[in-house]
């Protein structure tokens, strides 16, 4: 009996290790930006002729949600954001990420910057009209440069930024009702205290 005990223990330990490994999400890369100040930017606002930057939100707890009309997972989380927007709990700013060049159907060699911005405004506005607009406002990150500063590598992504402009949480992938109620809203409530 004892002969088989240790190999059995070893085998069970290996199974547990592999089971845990299989259930980890390889896309869930911890962000080094949590606890750091949100990078500054100044980007054109969708449906308006002005610019917006994180400094405009100083003194408020807010969400920054990275989205694009070509992003399939954004459709999954969008109704949840629309619901959240109706409740007026926390302002949600949309970072529209590479609206034109991200979808891969536009030949960028033949599109000048002005045309790209025009097309982005058109596509993004149409998509929000169709699916609902939960955002306080959306800004256009046409070339994804601001995305790099925020460590964006998969859309959608959501950041919680506190009153002092510090990133307190980053969520990669669609926001689910579970993540919203168990992680995002409690943190927002705590930061608002």
């Amino acid at each position, binding site marked *: 009996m004892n002969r088989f005990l240790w190999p059995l223990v070893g085998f069970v330990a290996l199974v547990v290790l592999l089971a845990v490994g299989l259930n980890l999400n*390889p896309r869930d*890369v*911890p*962000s*080094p*930006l949590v606890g750091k100040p949100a990078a500054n930017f100044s980007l054109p606002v969708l449906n308006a002729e002005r610019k917006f930057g994180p400094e405009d939100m100083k003194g408020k707890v807010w969400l920054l949600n990275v989205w694009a009309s070509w992003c399939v997972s954004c459709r999954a989380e969008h109704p949840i954001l629309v619901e959240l927007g109706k409740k007026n709990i926390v302002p949600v700013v949309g970072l529209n990420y*590479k609206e034109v*060049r*991200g979808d*891969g159907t536009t030949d960028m060699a033949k599109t000048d910057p002005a045309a790209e911005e025009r097309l982005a405004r058109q596509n993004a506005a149409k998509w929000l009209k169709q699916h609902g607009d939960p955002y306080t406002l959306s800004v256009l990150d046409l*070339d*994804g*440069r601001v*995305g*790099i*500063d*925020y*460590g964006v*590598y*998969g859309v959608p992504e959501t950041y919680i930024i506190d009153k002092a402009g510090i990133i307190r949480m980053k969520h990669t992938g669609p926001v689910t009702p579970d993540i919203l109620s168990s992680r995002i809203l409690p943190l927002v409530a705590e930061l608002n205290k």
Partner: protein
Amino acid sequence: MMRRTAHLLAALVLAMSSLALQAKEAAPLAADPLTEKRLLAITTELRCLVCQNQTIADSNADLANDFRREIRKLIAEGKSDQEILDFMVARYGDFVRYRPPVKGTTILLWAGPAALLVIGLTTLILYLRRRNSAISDAALSSEEQRQIAALLDPSSHDSQNNKPQ
């Protein structure tokens, strides 16, 4: 025969040219070959976060293209290789490096395989030693001695073999 070969060749050339037409145009290189050389060296050290087991140098993902564009810009601004790596790590974490630095959170990653090898070798050596001593210590009973003698005795051996079946 010759004609057939010529036809085959023509078909092959056609097939290859259509493939070439389908292939995407290469991304424009920076005018400076030194920049490209540095870009290649840096991007070989960086992980593409979309296709996680590729380096940025190997990857054709949109994000990898954005990183290349950004790194070209940083090189043009006169940043050192280390500064550029730090720029990436500050935004994407140690995971973005193909060779993560040795520190508390990565020690298992670096030392794990060596530790497993040591544990395995130690276990093997201990097991073999225990088995060896178990074998040499075993004394034969008198019954076993008698059986050995019977087996080694040539006369009994022959007589057994010659027995009619």
